[in-house]
Structures are given as C-alpha cells and as structure tokens.
C-alpha cells in the first residue's frame, strides 16, 4: 500500500474506533460525574484481621475492575472506605455523615449484627440504598420491612443447617452433641440453629452440654476438660478469629479431636492457623466450593485480582467477608443496570431499590438470588469440608467437600428461620 492510502486507512480506522467507543460509552441521561459508594468494614479491632480488612481489600480490587470495565452505567465508582468500629451511636452518626455530608449514592458493608440492626431505620429515614454485606443475624428482615436495605449474602441459618446435614452425612450414628460458643448473639444464634436442626434431622440425638465462655476469653482448658470428660460425639462451635485458633489449638493438643468430631460453622480467620482435623464451613460457597464452582470465571478473576494487589497463601483462600462484599457490589451494579434500562435514564434511588428486589446476578460465589425477605434477602448454598494439612503446599486445605443447595439450607420467603427448622424444613430441596 502507498503511504497515503495506508494513512487514510489508519485515519478511517481510528475514526471508526472513536465512533464505536463513544457509542458504547454514551453517557446515560442525567448521570452524575461519579458514583460515590461507601464501604463500611472493621478496619480496627479484633474483627479487622479475620473479616474487616479482607472485605475492604476485596471491595477495593473489585471496584477497580468495575471502573476498568467502564464503571456502573458508564459512571466511575468512587469508594469511601469507612471504619465500622465503635459503639452504635458512632456508627449511626457515621452513616448520617456519609449520607448527608459525603452524599454517597449507596452504602455497602457492616459486619457486626448489631450494626446491621441499627442502620436500617436510618437508611430508610434518609432514603439511602444500603446493602448489608457480612452480618449473620437472621433478624434484619424477619422482624420488619426496610424498603432501602438489602442483604446480598445469606444469614446464619445456612451455617447451622449446613453443619447439621454435613455432620450427619459423615457420621450418621451421632448420639450426643455439645456446644461451646461465645456468649453473645452470634454464639447463641449459631448454637440454636445447629442444635434444633440436629434434633429435627435425628430426633434421638441428645444435647449433653452447652458452654458459654465470654468473647475473647482466650483460655479454654476447663471447657476442654469438661468435653473430654463428657465425650460427646460431636462438638459444635461458632468461635471465630483468635478464639477459634486458640480453642482448636488447645483442643488438638489435648486430643479432643480423637474423642469427638469438632465442627466449626465459619472460617473467619486465615485458615493457616486453625488446627487441621475440624469440620468447617465458610458461610457460603466462598472458601469451600465444589470443583465446578472453582471453574467460575468470575471467581478465578477475583482470586487473581486479589492476589495481585494484596497477596494470597498457596491455597488461594480468601475470607468469606471478602466474597460477600463483592456480592454486594455485583448486586449494586446489576440493579443499576436493570434500573437504567427500565427508566431509560439515570435512575432514582427508589428505582434502583425496586430493581434490586428479587434480582438474580452472577458473582464469584456463583449465582445469587434475592429470594426471601420480600426480595431483599439473598440465599446461598452452604459448603462444608474437613480441614486438612497439605504437606506439598505447606498450608491447610479443604477436603471431603460437600455443598448444600440454597433451597436446602434457607427458609422459604415469609417464614422465620427457627420456625422453619421446628416445622421440619418444609419446602427444602436438598
């Protein structure tokens, strides 16, 4: 080709590309210059290591990815990272500041159940779209309606029901169970769901003990001695973080794992320190997934992005909080896109909320359905495994993985969790 014609080719090509680019990036009518999203997690305090920081980091890398792909509706997402730590009055003041001062369009976050219960009335009052991202309590939508509040991950019912089903699948002859849980709402709720599920699924099971050490007690020799004396078939615990590592370490050293099956309903800690041999759940299909789920391209992408920016252990393990925050962002994006399509212009908060209700969307944790709580609460499958040490990798890994479908471990819409269990899990599809 002659120089002139090749240059003309290049010119036409670039004009064409430019036209294509501007067509696909045509801004939505009424779109703001940026979309401010508050990301609230524990950045300090004991929950920051196991949950808060991984969640914040995950939101960070995922928002970068969203922006690389053009943002939400063509608008760049700007995160406002906020520390969740502090008493309820501080959390609520902070929420008001984010809404009225920073003027965020949406808030995602909240790991503590207490905050997940404190924030919704304020969110409704200020009309700010809020997606709660890692708390366990089932009370949020079971006790009241909140038009502006959503939760894109499952609540704690899946942990207890999943644990019960998993334990029975591996040890159908369970005779006695004991619980050791931190004496606060999470511990109480977790134990309640587990022990009721066990007694429903195998009515002759006996509860021999329920112990309630205080949060961060750090010293469990008396409790472990008692368990060694009682020798229950199964020991259930909802410990997390440092308490979990301590308990598992002390229990293993004293041979509790040889006498009883120990099951933990969450992996809220870097699993490298937890003594192998426990049965463990990861609050949904996050750390523990089936082989097909491992092939999920979004999941692979998330792990790669997280590893590139923040580093990961050889087992690719990321805390479930991190996955939950990404689910919230995916839900937010999907809701905005649907609302934009419906409205034909930049949507109001109410339109986005309407779009998010009952929505289904894809995430690194699989396909999420906002199925219960009037369309405001997501359901997820539960995954359980045995923690084993892999000498080749030099880290703990999951083996004997079993997934329980979402409809197997979540109550149907409109029914409270405990009621559903007591009635014998009506409508469960396992």
């Amino acid at each position, binding site marked *: 080709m002659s120089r002139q014609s090749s240059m003309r080719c290049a010119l036409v090509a670039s004009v064409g590309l430019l036209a294509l680019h501007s067509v696909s990036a045509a801004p939505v009518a009424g779109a703001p210059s940026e979309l401010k999203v508050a990301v609230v997690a524990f*950045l*300090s305090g004991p929950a920051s290591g196991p949950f808060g920081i991984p969640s914040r980091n995950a939101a960070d890398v995922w928002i970068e990815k969203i922006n690389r792909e053009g943002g939400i509706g063509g608008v760049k997402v700007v995160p406002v990272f*906020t*520390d969740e*730590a*502090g*008493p*309820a*009055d*501080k959390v*609520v*003041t*902070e929420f*008001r*500041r984010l*809404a*009225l*001062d920073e003027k965020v369009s949406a808030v995602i976050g909240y790991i503590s*159940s*207490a905050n997940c*219960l*404190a924030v919704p*009335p*304020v969110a409704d*009052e200020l009309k700010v779209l809020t997606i709660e991202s890692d708390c366990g*309590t089932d*009370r949020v939508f079971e006790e009241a309606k909140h038009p502006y509040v959503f939760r894109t991950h499952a609540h704690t019912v899946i942990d207890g029901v999943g644990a019960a089903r998993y334990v029975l699948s591996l040890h159908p002859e369970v005779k006695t169970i004991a619980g050791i849980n931190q*004496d*606060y*709402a*999470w511990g*109480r709720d977790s134990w309640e769901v587990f022990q009721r599920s066990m007694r429903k699924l195998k009515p002759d099971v006996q509860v021999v003990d329920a112990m309630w050490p205080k949060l961060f007690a750090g010293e469990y020799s008396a409790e472990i001695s008692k368990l060694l004396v009682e020798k229950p078939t199964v020991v259930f615990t909802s410990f997390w973080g440092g308490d979990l590592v301590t308990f598992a370490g002390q229990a293993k050293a004293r041979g509790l794992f040889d006498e009883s099956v120990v099951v933990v309903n969450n992996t809220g800690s870097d699993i490298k320190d937890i003594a192998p041999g426990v049965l463990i759940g990861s609050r949904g299909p996050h750390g523990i997934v089936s082989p097909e789920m491992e092939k999920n391209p979004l999941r692979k992408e998330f792990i790669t992005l997280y590893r590139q920016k923040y580093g990961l252990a050889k087992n690719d393990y990321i805390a479930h909080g991190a996955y939950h925050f990404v689910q919230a962002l995916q839900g937010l994006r999907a809701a905005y896109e649907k609302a934009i399509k419906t409205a034909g212009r930049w949507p109001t908060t109410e339109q986005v909320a309407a779009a998010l209700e009952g929505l289904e969307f894809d995430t690194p944790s699989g396909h999420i359905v906002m199925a219960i709580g009037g369309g405001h609460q997501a359901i997820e499958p539960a995954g359980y495994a045995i923690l084993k040490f892999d000498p080749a990798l030099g880290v703990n890994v999951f083996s004997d993985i079993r997934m329980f479908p979402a409809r197997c471990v979540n109550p149907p819409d409109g029914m409270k969790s405990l009621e559903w269990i007591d009635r014998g899990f009506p409508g469960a599809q396992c």
Partner: protein
Amino acid sequence: MLARARTAIYVALGALVLLVGVPLLVSGWIVFLLTVAGAKALAVLGVVLLLRGKLLTFGHALYYAVGAYAAGMAVKYLAVREALVLLTLSLLAGVAMSAFLGLLVARYRAVYFALLNLAFSMVLYGILLKFYSVTGGTDGLGIAEPTLAGVRLSGSLLRLAMYELTVVLTTLLVYFTYRFFASPTGYTLRAIRDNEVRVEYMGVSVWRAVYVSYVIAGGLAAVAGGLIALSVGHITPDLAFWSQSGEFVFVAVLGGTGSMLAPAVGSVLFEFVRNYAFELSPYTWQMTLGIVLLLIIFFLPGGVWSLTTLAWRRAGR
C-alpha cells in the same frame, strides 16, 4: 441588677444560636452529632461532679446503660412511645440504681471507688448480654421513633426535635448541677476534695455529701442514656462496658472540671475529633487520644475550659 440583665442577654443569645442558628446553618448530620454530644455531656457532667469531690469512677457507664435500657424496655414491653415519659423513666431508673449502689459505694475512695464502680458496671454488662431474649443481647434493642409531647414526628423533623430537646434538657440539668454546687452539700463536696478528715472533724457528714452527689451523678448519666436511646434508635450492652466509662473520664479531663459547662464543650470537641480522626487513621486513633490526654495532664491540667478562663482573665474581667 445590670449583671443579671447581662446574664439574661447571654442566655437568650446562646439559646437563639443553639436552638435556631445551628440547625439552620449546619448539615443534618452535624445536628445529629451535636445531639449525641449533648446527651453524653450529661454523663460526663456526672463524672465531673464526682471528680470535684476527688472521686474518680471507672464505671459510670453503668447508669448510662441503665437509663438507655429503661427507655428501651419501656418502649418494647410497656408500649410507651412518649419521649418525655421515657426520659422520666430513665431518670427514675438511674436514680433508683444509684441510690441503691451508692449505699454500698459511698464509703470508698480513690482506687477502690474506681474499681468497685467498674465491677458493678461489668456485672450489668454481663446481665444485659446474657438475658438475650429480654434485652436482645449483643444484637441490641431497636427503639421505635418516639412522640414528643404527644406530637408524632418523623424523619428530619424528629431529628430536629430531638436536638432541641437535648439542648434544653442539657441546659436545664447543667444549671441544676450549678445550683447544687452552690448549695451546702456542694460546698461540702468541695471541702472533701481539699481535706476530708477536717470536714469530719467539723461535724459535717462526709458520707452524706458523697452519697447525694453519687445519686445525682447517676441520675444525670441515666438521662444521657435515655436521650441516646431515643436519638440513635438502637442500644447495645456496650453502653455499660468499661471502655465507655473510660471515654467519659477522658472527656471529663479533656473539658476540664472548672465549670459545669466544660463537659459540654469537651463532649462536642471529642465527638468532632473522633469522627474525623477515625477517618484519617483508624490505627493511630487511640494513640492520638493518649497523646492529647498526656498533653492536658502536663500542660493544661484544667482541661480545655481553662483556656476560656485564661482568655476571660486576659480580657480583664
């Protein structure tokens, strides 16, 4: 005569600024922050009151929690919705508790006084946490929007109303405490700080002065708790935890014990600094508090309030 007129003008101006000016000029969240600061100032006032008698307590959050939960439980179990009634219930609960515990605590001083109050507050924390089905445990208790003097408000109007209520109540109670200090019991308290033994030798009952002060301090903190419960709408057992007591002590020292207005100043300052410092650096937030406290101990022992008295003196009054 002139002095009284001048005071009246100051009060009227202050009222105008606080009640009308502030809400008009600043954002809604700052109004909320001031509501919280104003409520907590009452608890700090209780701590300052006791400090004036040389009594340091590390368990004042006990009464703060009592007031909050009295309001919360009344809303949940007695279906009371009127704010004024709820606050009265908080006050009564707080005074009842401090009247009872005061009997046990009033003969202690110094470290033992601090520790015994701490122990009681942690027992309450344990109770609130444990009786999960009644108190909601660590999930906390949600409190429905209250009515004010029978009027049902919501949204930003309710926030404004709560702000105004807090300002009015805080002012009234600060004035009440000021009058208490001008009373014989108040003077006895001051004398106890200087030399307790001499007060006894004078034939004045030290125990009675301490007891009365303790009961009043408890009542003040309980009203604070009630206001917080109504404004924030969600209460947790953390309200009784020793770190909350520690915060009250910190603010008391920050503001200074020189005046009944100092706790309010300290409290507002603290809330603002806390909100912004947390944003800037959650890992050095406590270090900042510690350094500030050190600076006050060494360079400004009278707290921030002493800056105003310095300025006053400079202005030649």
